């Protein structure tokens, strides 16, 4: 909820998944368990938490038809705002990181989260993983390099 409050609005479940994963890898206290799936790191637990928060009336989920598929738009409700005010969690660096991630597109966030998933590997091995596992996304070497730079920038932001 904090994440959505800080971001204002998050468009797309995939984007939300990747943003929380990246925040988790930046050591923000998100405890949802992630696994590598066809489309990169994914947490079923996070999907269920979001459903729960919608059911409780703390989050608003808007389903929109877009081309051949549905897209979901998430915002905080008044009740959610009230609940957050009563249960404040101090994470001063989180809003700026999330705002920045929210301004990126989900394709790029998918790449960033994939690079972070393989952060124990050497850069060349990560590139190979990206090119073989994400062959359909056709990422370029330059994009992978940009992802690394972006991760460094986020890490700097998270420390502030």
């Amino acid at each position, binding site marked *: 909820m904090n994440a959505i409050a800080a971001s204002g609005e998050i468009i797309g479940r995939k984007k939300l998944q990747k943003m929380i994963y990246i925040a988790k890898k930046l050591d923000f206290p998100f405890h949802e368990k992630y696994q590598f799936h066809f489309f990169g790191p994914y947490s079923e637990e996070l999907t269920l938490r979001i459903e729960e928060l919608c*059911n409780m009336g703390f989050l608003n989920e808007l389903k929109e038809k877009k081309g051949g598929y549905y897209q979901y738009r998430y915002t905080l409700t008044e009740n959610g705002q009230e609940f957050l005010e009563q249960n404040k969690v101090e994470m001063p660096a989180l809003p700026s990181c999330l705002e920045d991630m929210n301004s990126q597109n989900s394709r790029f966030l998918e790449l960033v989260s994939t690079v972070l998933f*393989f952060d124990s590997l050497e850069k060349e091995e990560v590139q190979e993983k990206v090119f073989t596992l994400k062959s359909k996304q056709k990422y370029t070497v330059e994009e992978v390099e940009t992802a690394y730079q972006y991760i460094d920038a986020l890490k700097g932001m998270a420390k502030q």
Partner: protein
Amino acid sequence: MAYSTEKLNEEKVFKDPVHRYIHVRDRAIWDLIGTKEFQRLRRIKQLGTTYLTFHGAEHSRFNHSLGVYEIVRRIIDDVFKDRKEWNNSQRLLSLCAALLHDLGHGPFSHSFEKVFDLDHEQFTQDIILGDTEVNQVLSRVAEDFPKRVAEVIGKTSKEKLVVSLISSQIDADRMDYLLRDAYFTGVSYGNFDMERILRVMRPREDQAVIKQSGMHAVEDYIMSRYQMYWQVYFHPVSRSAEVILTKILHRAKHLHEQFYSFIHHPTHFYSIFEDETSLEDYLKLDESIILYYFQMWQEEEDEILRDLCRRFMNRNLFKYVEFDPAKEYKMLAELSKAFTEIGLDPEYYLVVDSSSDLPYDFYRPGEEEERLPIHLLMKNNEIRELSRESEIVDSISGKRRTDHKLYFPKDILKDDREHKEAKMRIRQLLDIN
């Protein structure tokens, strides 16, 4: 003969109540079953605390792992073998990954992982890649074979079709656990026609798809999954046992951190309490060890640990009421205060449990590329997502399915010998007699 293709002189068969027989012909598979890390799975129950609700549910992860292996073997040998989209050189890789996919599970895995922040999937990787008997067997196939098996199980392998046989929304893992859990719990709703599903599976580059003519068998599988989740996996009494188990582990860890002097020292837990779990320590743990400590801790001086262990061992579980966190969080704060007043620590005796805390998921049609959905192969060779073709699946996909319960020791709250008025107030708040 190369070890990777070496066959046993005679086929070995395991009698199995779900698949009738499990057939082993490959030397490597037979050797893996004999390793101590795989044999350890005999001492870890597939359904954790569910046996306290469904007394038949005593089956182990060993049974299930053999079952998953057998399903993958049948898919490959009986259905995929001569199809051009299938590369039979991936056969042993698929069978090993199927057999070993749950190798890293610990005792009462779910609670254990939550309390001690552990990850069974990481332990699976560590066992396959580490200094273990399993690693020795896999390394005999090829030097890079352990890594390839680990990547399939970790879903980071480029062999996506092989990954999908073990981890997808209609995979051998789920098919086996649904049938096996239904059989051992004795419920009738987990059954579906697996033979039919296997016969209509077709290999494609990224995943196994289902022929359109098999859609009704898949509908049945999705319905079984739906029913099993609510009737067995999310059963409120099993969740109560899980709540108590979790609280015992929390309490024992807390006491250790407070330098409490245990009458019966938790030797096997030390490295876990101190967040320094080595693979060697982890592999020594199984459910018989855990239950041994719970048995012994029934005599501890710490009142909370003693009481929780007695509750678990003697099945004197917490009762529950439905709970709406959005509307009732203020009431929860009030209850928490009242529990403290009567000498019950709310941290251990007033617990909210949500269905999202459980490690089971429903079918998701993969909107917005979250998870790869089940795909049907239409007569014109087109691929269509299941819920777009099946009204039944569509009607249960994407529905609201969250559930919260508030657990508490009703027996203590009903005992009016002490704190009578405060307990009456608590009972009113909880709306129990």
